[in-house]
């Protein structure tokens, strides 16, 4: 059967179960868009900037666990997508991004809207392809999806020259062959015996859960391991949601803005079982003082993540789900039981740390505290919500004060820390789950980085809710200037922001503003109830800081706390 390139593309997307594409048309992808115009199975969401398309596909992928798809044109369309691709790459999110390219005969000639996008994205994709002829189109697209979702997932870019898409070829699905590349699944049984031995001799074990547990769909196994054997759990930013945030064993996030008790637990534990983490510098503080009393077990699918930052005692290369299943089976078969009073002593110690320095803030009746808004949001929604965040203080307060109960419900740019992520990501999440409440917790700096996507939400009635914590500052940078630069607020004052309520109206969505603590609950209830995209703006205390905080270059056991609380 003879098919054109554009037909092959859409056919394989359908086979891969793609139901939504986020994209933006342009010269080199006109043929694809023309073909898309008649397609009934794939919905296309027209964003307002290509960065938004990739973040939306990313949000979709993080919430569903499936591959997100974006489609953009060549040149500036492709370069605009790069921040989104790098964001997904740092957090190992499966995406396939299709970029248009000038006809193969013009490649290298500095043609109009030409750029070497495979060259540009080589360091920030899991893999990328330039499809040089129609014969390799089908297998390349298939392979792109396979690579994106297998092993340690990641974004794959496929560059599609205009003439290749217009060409015709004999298409037979039976002839499509993809290369199989090596992926680690199951570790050797002797490793399980080693963990058992380490667990049996440990008096103070701690589990550290990371993004790999969510990506590996291993939250249930991790939760079972912790609960069955009464092992406390801390998590990285990316691990939030992989263990219930309202469970007594949960110690909260560790690291730079982690809880006092999580960081004390890491610093004092004698066995650290790290699952799906890569020991980022924001998590470890100074490496030399990280978990010095502990033997460390690291379970990860990617060998290059092991012994990269922290040298571990027992490296286990494997899929998190399969490995944890093996471990649970092995522990049960060998009748592992924690020594009761030892474990109780350790949990009592953690409780004492928690009592000494709880995660809290100075409440106020005069001025809105951002933490209070987040707590109220949790109370009203009872946690039945998918939250995206922007990057900065809004993100850290959310991680600290919203107890996420389930995996894939906290959607945030961890590794790259991309401001402007939250709104388009929320649009992606809401497109996948139209019946779910989806809230973007934002700051006034971040939201303006992709504010144009309000038009996308309005056009398709994608009713995302924005909780905007407005302090008129680039808050996190200002916090560093306050603490480490003698309060010299160089270029962080953003008092000239638009009137967000009027802006909402201008975009044809709803806008509400709260300026006093007494208005917080009513504003949230009103905004969450409206059947439209909404901005709920909360004018918050301007110089609120995120605490606790580990100063850069310090050990995570040395934390700075809010002066007003500790005095």
């Amino acid at each position: 059967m003879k098919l054109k390139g554009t037909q092959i593309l859409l056919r394989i997307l359908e086979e891969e179960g793609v139901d939504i594409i986020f994209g933006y048309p342009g010269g080199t992808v006109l043929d694809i868009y023309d073909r898309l115009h008649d397609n009934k199975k794939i919905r296309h969401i027209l964003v307002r900037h290509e960065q938004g398309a990739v973040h939306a596909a990313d949000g979709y992928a993080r919430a569903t666990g499936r591959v997100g798809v974006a489609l953009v044109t060549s040149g500036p369309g492709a370069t605009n997508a790069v921040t989104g691709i790098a964001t997904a790459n740092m957090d190992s999110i499966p995406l396939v991004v299709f970029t248009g390219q000038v006809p193969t005969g013009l490649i290298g000639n500095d043609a109009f809207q030409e750029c070497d996008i495979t060259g540009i994205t080589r360091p920030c994709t899991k893999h990328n392809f330039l499809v040089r002829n129609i014969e390799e189109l089908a297998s390349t697209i298939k392979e792109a999806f396979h690579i994106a979702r297998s092993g340690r997932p990641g974004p794959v870019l496929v560059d599609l020259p205009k003439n290749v898409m217009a060409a015709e070829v004999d298409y037979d699905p039976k002839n499509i062959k993809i290369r199989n590349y090596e992926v680690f699944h199951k570790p050797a049984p002797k490793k399980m015996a080693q963990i058992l031995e380490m667990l049996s001799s440990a008096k103070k074990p701690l589990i550290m859960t990371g993004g790999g547990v969510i990506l590996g769909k291993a939250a249930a196994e991790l939760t079972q391991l912790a609960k069955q054997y009464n092992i406390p759990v801390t998590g990285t930013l990316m691990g939030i949601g992989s263990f219930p945030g309202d469970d007594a064993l949960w110690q909260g996030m560790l690291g730079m803005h982690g809880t006092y008790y999580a960081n004390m637990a890491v610093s004092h534990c004698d066995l650290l079982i790290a699952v799906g983490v890569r020991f980022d510098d924001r998590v470890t503080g100074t490496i030399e003082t990280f978990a010095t009393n502990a033997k460390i077990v690291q379970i990860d699918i990617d060998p290059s993540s092991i012994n990269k930052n922290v040298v571990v005692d027992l490296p286990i290369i494997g899929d998190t789900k399969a490995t944890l299943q093996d471990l649970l089976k092995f522990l049960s078969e060998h009748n592992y039981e924690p020594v009761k009073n030892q474990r109780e002593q350790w949990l009592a110690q953690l409780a004492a740390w928690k009592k000494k320095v709880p995660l809290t803030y100075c409440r106020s009746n005069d001025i809105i505290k951002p933490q209070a808004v987040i707590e109220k949001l949790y109370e009203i929604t009872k946690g039945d919500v998918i939250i995206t965040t922007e990057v900065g203080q809004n993100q850290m307060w959310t991680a600290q004060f919203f107890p996420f109960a389930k995996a894939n419900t906290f959607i945030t740019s961890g590794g790259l820390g991309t401001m402007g992520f939250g709104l388009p990501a929320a649009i992606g999440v809401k497109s996948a789950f139209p019946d779910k409440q989806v809230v973007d917790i934002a700051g006034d700096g971040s939201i303006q980085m992709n504010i144009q996507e309000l038009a996308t939400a309005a056009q398709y009635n994608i009713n995302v809710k924005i909780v905007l914590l407005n302090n008129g500052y680039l808050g996190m940078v200002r916090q560093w200037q306050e603490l480490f630069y003698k309060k010299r607020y160089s270029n962080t004052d953003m008092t000239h922001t638009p009137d967000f309520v009027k802006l909402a109206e201008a975009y044809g969505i709803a806008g509400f503003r709260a300026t006093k603590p007494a208005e917080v609950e009513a504003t949230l209830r009103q905004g969450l109830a409206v059947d439209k995209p909404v901005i709920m703006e909360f004018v918050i205390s301007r110089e609120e800081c995120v605490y606790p905080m580990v100063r850069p270059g310090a050990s995570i056991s040395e934390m700075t706390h809010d002066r007003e609380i500790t005095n």
Partner: protein
Amino acid sequence: MEKKEHIISILVYNKPDVLARIAGTLGGKGYNIESLSVNTTTSYEVSKIIMTTIGNQATITRIENQLRRFVDVIRVDNLTNIESIHREMILVRLNLTEDKKEEIKKNIDTYKWKVIVSADSYVILEITGDKAQNDFAMARLEPLGIADITRTGIVALELES
């Protein structure tokens, strides 16, 4: 940990950008490639890259793990700690000036250097050996007045696989 030179053999799919991918990633992570040799194997689809780099064992392990992440990389072997033979080649042109002419001829005889081009005013030699042998040759060649020189990267092969 001791820093030393490691010879890494990488079997890859022969794709247009595979070398750029490897070189770019290693460079971006701050690892230096000291020498490089690439060619196809018995199959045109598959190429072998022999790369040398300097580092301690931990660094080299990180490099190997990084290489194994590439979709186009089939296999990675560190040939440093297993029995293997290593060769690199020098092509060198020496001008037969009046004052050096005799000495050059004497050296060619003594060290059994292979003359591949012999002209009135110059000779081109091909010298093959492992790194130590070639460094030895270099030390002998320099006083003779090198007009131009090319050295390949190291190629290596394990004795038994």
